[in-house]
């Protein structure tokens, strides 16, 4: 891994539910950061973004976000904005991903039409 490259993941919001999703290694989307595909180089980042681009019918606004890796190689957010996105409002621990609402853990494919 080039020394000056910070590992990255692709994040976006689900088109239908609006909640935070991450691209997984299959090019699909997961609601768990732990399952996100990690880009270790700029080229890998570009590849992930290229896979996201044609998925306008599933997600909104995909972008590369910095992550750090724990000892097991799992990503965690480095910026506080991304930290909030993995959790939900800091003032309402009962809401958002942090609330472990089973309904919000549904896979993206379950999203319906209008």
């Amino acid at each position, binding site marked *: 891994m080039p020394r000056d490259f910070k590992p990255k993941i692709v994040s976006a919001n689900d088109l239908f539910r*609006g909640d935070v999703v991450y691209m997984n290694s299959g090019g699909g989307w997961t609601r768990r950061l732990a399952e996100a595909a990690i880009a270790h180089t700029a080229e890998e980042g570009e590849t992930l973004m290229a896979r996201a681009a044609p998925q*306008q019918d599933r997600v909104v606004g995909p972008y590369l976000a910095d992550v750090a890796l724990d000892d097991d190689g799992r990503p965690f957010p*480095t910026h506080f904005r991304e930290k*909030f996105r993995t959790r939900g*409002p800091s003032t309402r621990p009962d809401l958002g*991903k942090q609330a472990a609402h089973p309904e919000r853990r549904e896979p993206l494919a379950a999203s319906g039409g209008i």
Partner: protein
Amino acid sequence: MYRYDEFDHDYVRARVSEFRDQTQRRIDGALTEDEYKPLRLMNGLYLQLHAYMLRVAIPYGTLSSRQMRTLATIAERWDEGYGHFTTRQNIQYNWTKLTDVGDILDALADVEMHAIQTSGNCIRNVTADHFAGAAADEIEDPRPTAELIRQWSTAHPEFAFLPRKFKVAVTGSPNDRAVTKAHDIGLRMVRGEGGAPGYEVIVGGGLGRTPMIGKVMRDFLPKDHLLPYLEAILRVYNLHGRRDNKYKARIKILVHETGIDDMRAQVEAEFERQMREEGGPVVAPDPEQVARIEAYFAPPALADLPERSETLETAMAEDAALARWVETNVAAHRAPGHAIVTVAVKGTGEAPGDATTAQMRALADLGERYSHDELRISHEQNVILPHVRKDDLPGVFAALRKAGLATANAGLITDIIACPGLDYCALATARSIPVAQDLSRRFAAPDRAKAIGEFTIKISGCINACGHHHVGHVGILGLEKSGIENYQITLGGDHTETMAIGERAGPGISAEEVGPAIERLVDAYLDVREDEGERFIDTYRRLGAEPFKAALYAAA
């Protein structure tokens, strides 16, 4: 209150189908996200950090109990059991799903409400004095004007893709409770020669990255010239407003760069052109429709009462909490024996402006029972009961206590304005709500808050200034510095008719330092003020910023 006619009903309903259709085209790919975004924004739908957010208009802040109940139902059925009242008299739902929006908009249409033009680069929801039609100091009710502007601006085909958003506020009182000087256009109702009603037209105010106080474009505009004049301002802005930089795209920058005199000349020329048009200006108000609107805002039939209520006086003598609440949260009504009640939607440690489903329902009940079926939302994120008999105040207070809405802090240091900040907002650079909550706990003691007196703290979580920090006596702006939240303090702002932009006190401080720093500032103020009647802002104007900067930055 205004009631929809057939045209309004059909149109609002049609807009729901239109939105469903636009969303379907977004999903099908006929519309790209870039193309869909302004369309959804013009229907109040944002995409925030954790979910879509739907911003529903409460035109000029007025709503009925039935409408409030619908707002509660939406929170319960499609959201997470609460809504957030905003500084622009809207309500926001933070957990909206795209697939539910059509149904929510239909539920709103059932009670003559909508989310049209609550966002987007268009003429936004028109705001007005929240004491309209009730205030003792009012020249004329501003709401018929606001409603006329709402009708004119709704889906105005020429002005749907302006350089940037465009906000209009109207006040009918010399005491400006509608922050008119911080709007793209502020209208103040005035009397001309012979007592003819008209407007002072203020243009180019705004907060955000470059705060500016609006400048007077016209001292006196006759009432029936309003729409052609607005049309002239908007046309000049649409043609010449900057489109190369979104931070320079508001009309305040055009006014600043063009100069108010040149700008006025352009607007007056455009206005004159319309006045010369054959058959008069296309948008000259239709007198019948104006009369129809005005009739809807006729004052409610209030009972003939003595100014002094013995019932209230007796109750206050027995209940100190009631007396304190009446002192802070009750304002003078124009009708004897009546009062305007401000319900604080910001109890100790709560998020300013957040109301639960149960609270909204309690407020709806109170509006129906005690306030002629009318409620208001203020830009201070409170709810107003505009027409309450003084005899009923003890009953209102008891009911508010039960609903957790009886905090006696209107206008006091804990009557804090805060935007949603980084807990919700995709644009935010730092959190606002936790700072407000911390301050509200620190100053919760009622006697201390009362001793401090009138004191406004306004908090924004980014430079866009939705929390009006520039015009708070103390403003707090949340930014990011080297990867952590950092807060800049401004001092000496004023949101009223004597508007002033606060001055930056010095370098930003960390989140944990904000509370202690504000406590030191308040202590310093209590030390140096001349007497209890001298408000913080008066002391600040007398002594300047230095003593307060010293207190803020005193080594902890």
